[in-house]
């Protein structure tokens, strides 16, 4: 009887520890930074040669995905209305790695021909103050054209933005 009681006590202790840890982790999450609007700069690829269609697809998908994540004011590179917006966050993206891959190889072999792209995303204020630096990658392994990697990247980058920024929050 005592054994069973002991086991029950230990079980409840373990449950408490494991259940409480995620709750504690949530508390320690940093507060989201206020971003009334985003301005997406054109993707830079000075060191790595990136085909023009990839550059444009990355940029367009990024704008679209940020809009989908609920950021209603997403300004494009060079938009004259952007500088007047308070709490603007500028997204600079620089290509760090690119593997073109092959759609044909993917379709024929399934295992080879993956397209991958790694981009360094830097979220800053218009004055250059850095808010967040993160490497984000985009991949297409099995199905879809090579440009699908740009969609994958954009989704991940927009998720990172949603995770760290909010339209309502501390400045």
């Amino acid at each position, binding site marked *: 009887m005592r054994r069973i009681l002991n086991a029950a006590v230990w079980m409840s202790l373990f449950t408490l520890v494991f259940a409480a840890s995620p709750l504690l982790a949530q508390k320690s999450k940093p507060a989201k930074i206020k971003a009334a609007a985003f301005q997406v700069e054109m993707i830079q690829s000075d060191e790595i040669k990136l085909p*023009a*269609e990839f550059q444009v697809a990355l940029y367009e998908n990024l704008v679209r995905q940020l809009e989908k994540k609920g950021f209603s004011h997403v300004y494009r590179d060079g938009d004259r209305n952007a500088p007047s917006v308070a709490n603007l966050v500028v997204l600079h993206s620089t290509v760090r790695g690119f593997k073109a891959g092959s759609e044909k190889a993917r379709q024929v072999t399934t295992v080879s021909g993956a397209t991958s792209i790694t981009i360094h995303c830097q979220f800053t204020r218009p004055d250059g103050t850095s808010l967040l630096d993160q490497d984000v990658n985009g991949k297409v392994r099995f199905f879809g054209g090579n440009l699908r990697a740009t969609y994958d990247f954009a989704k991940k980058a927009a998720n990172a933005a949603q995770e760290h920024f909010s339209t309502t929050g501390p400045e």
Partner: protein
Amino acid sequence: MTSRSTMVVVGVASLFAGLVMPAGNAQQAPGTVKAVQVTGLSGVKDNTKGTLNVGNGQLHFVRGKASSDVTAASIQDVVTGGDSQRAVGGTIGLMSMAAPYGGGRVLSLFRTKIDTLTIKYRDADGGLHGAIFTMPVGTADVIKKELVAQGAHTTAPAEPTPVATSSTSPNKEQKQ
């Protein structure tokens, strides 16, 4: 037995003919080319089929009765490239993936070459946009030349004709 093998040969030959013939029907009226807007054009869904032509200082993408125009003078960069796509695509291409003995994969080996046309342009507020089109091989350079003649800018003014370039060209076969 002989007639059966003849039928097989004829069947295979007609399949190949079917794969090759669409490339021949590529061009329409002079200056107008069939194109697919892959992404980027404002108000147009991705992968929309239509026709592309240049006139009155504008790039027109017409799909059905609707038309999207981009002023040539607002175009900051025009770049052409090469690509290839599955000869048998769409629903049939998707269904063929379920074919036994890797039949669908064999079909993936048959590909048609296409041209890509990428443009970067600015809207009225100065915001940068980009758009990607695919079109039959050999037609992207024609559109590019017309755009440049009507005031568009380009960072790659003298590109070799996509048809003439080999598969080793850096611009070609970046995507397969």
